[in-house]
């Protein structure tokens, strides 16, 4: 196999992780902030939640394909489409955990003792949320890697000259009969990446459970 194929493979994997990491950095802090704002249950916030529900109800994959295709082939467009499709679910997920954490007895006691909001959040609420946040973030990472591969496979990803696992799989498809390595190598790397992320997520979940922290 030519040397440039290996470099493409390596660069494609790095690109996938770069995109997934960027999407994670965009989605998670924003979702935490909005979930905190939407924690209380007044009519305006219920209305906003309803809008979020609409986004969740739309077919995720179709929306992603449409947005990525329509907004054009750039990294920012890809990130924006991932952001729009993933953030509503993320907010919903984090909101549930915030409501649960704020309802716990020690948080209520701290609140009754008059601790400030910021201190309450960083000292009593956030430590209870490391488990769900990290597990969800890893699963989001996994999902974004898959999405990026799918978009590039269909030719709707960013810059056609930059290597990506999805594009390498798509290109290797035509060479499957006479040289299956071109197809199988990116597939194996993709499966390994997903499997490793899934295992890390499972390990985190078990670790937090053994330390008495709840996930779910």
């Amino acid at each position, binding site marked *: 196999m030519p040397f440039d194929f290996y470099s493409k493979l390596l660069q494609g994997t790095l690109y996938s992780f770069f995109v997934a990491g960027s999407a994670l950095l965009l989605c998670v802090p924003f979702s935490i902030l909005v979930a905190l704002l939407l924690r209380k249950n007044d009519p305006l916030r219920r209305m906003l939640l309803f809008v979020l529900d609409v986004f969740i109800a*739309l*077919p995720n994959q*179709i929306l992603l394909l449409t947005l990525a295709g329509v907004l054009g082939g750039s990294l920012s467009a890809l990130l924006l489409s991932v952001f729009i499709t993933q953030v509503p679910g993320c907010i919903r997920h984090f909101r549930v955990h915030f409501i649960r954490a704020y309802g716990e007895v020690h948080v209520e006691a701290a609140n009754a003792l008059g601790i400030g909001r910021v201190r309450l959040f960083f000292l009593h609420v956030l430590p209870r949320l490391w488990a769900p946040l990290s597990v969800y973030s890893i699963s989001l990472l996994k999902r974004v890697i898959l999405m990026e591969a799918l978009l590039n496979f269909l030719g709707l990803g960013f810059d056609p000259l930059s290597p990506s696992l999805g594009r390498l799989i798509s290109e290797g498809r035509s060479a499957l009969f006479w040289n299956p390595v071109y197809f199988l190598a990116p597939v194996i790397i993709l499966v390994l990446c997903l499997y490793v992320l899934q295992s890390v997520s499972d390990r985190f979940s078990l670790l937090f459970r053994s330390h008495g922290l709840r996930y779910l």
Partner: protein
Amino acid sequence: MKFLKSLLLFCAAVFLSYLFVRCLLWQLPGTLADVLSDSETNLKDLELLRQEFQVSESFWKPLWNFLTLNWGVSQLFREENFPLIMNHFYLTLRLSLLSLLLTFVFSGCFFLFNQKFSERLSNLLLALPAIAIYPLVVFFLCDWTSYCPAGSSALFKAIFLAALAQGLLASPRFYRELEWELDEIRRQRFVLVLRAKGVRPSKIWSVHILKNAIAPFLSLMLLTILSFFAGAVLLEALFDLPGMGLLLLEAIRARDFTLIFPLVMFLSLLHLSTLQAGRFLKIGRAHAL
């Protein structure tokens, strides 16, 4: 009352999704202007697009159109679009139904094995991405064995192969969900009472557990069909099937916004109505238990 509330929610969700798609597409000419370079041809394209969308430079006219939903509804029910979408939809529907049937068969096979083995097998299958499995199925069953060359006149064969691949990938999730639902019912108190009364296990299974499993099974079935509709783009693109997914993909590639808009609307409506049907089934199930 619950029904009316759900109906209201559903209508509002449909309307909001419509507004969302409108918002998205309303921005398109502007977005395209950023994407397209300054070459003459592209500018001509942009001008044509503007004319087609009737986007004027004034602010109030598009806003008025947007609020009164003039443009969107007329686009959705354009004469040439509607039969085109429906024709492609029938193929996607056929493909999804056949895939569902094969999913039942494959997940039934999971129930035949030892539970531990089934779990491991389903874990393995769940880890495999669709973009890796579908090309392999195409390769082994289309190119290698020449059973059905992709894109040939043998449409049924191609549909069957695509459904086979989709059913194979969907079956582990279906099996897991169904197993979980059955386990939930098995743990209910009424099952314990029936056992204590000495009712035969086969009767408990056939009469009581399976009867209660019908509603979750139906809602699961609807959700599976939903995932098939969403995954149709990749499947139809790979198997070269002229369904709705391929139509959407081609419309996106050609930037044919007059087709993208009704397609996304149609798929969103389909998605929402199926979700809502699943929700009604869940409500029914809560009453039954």
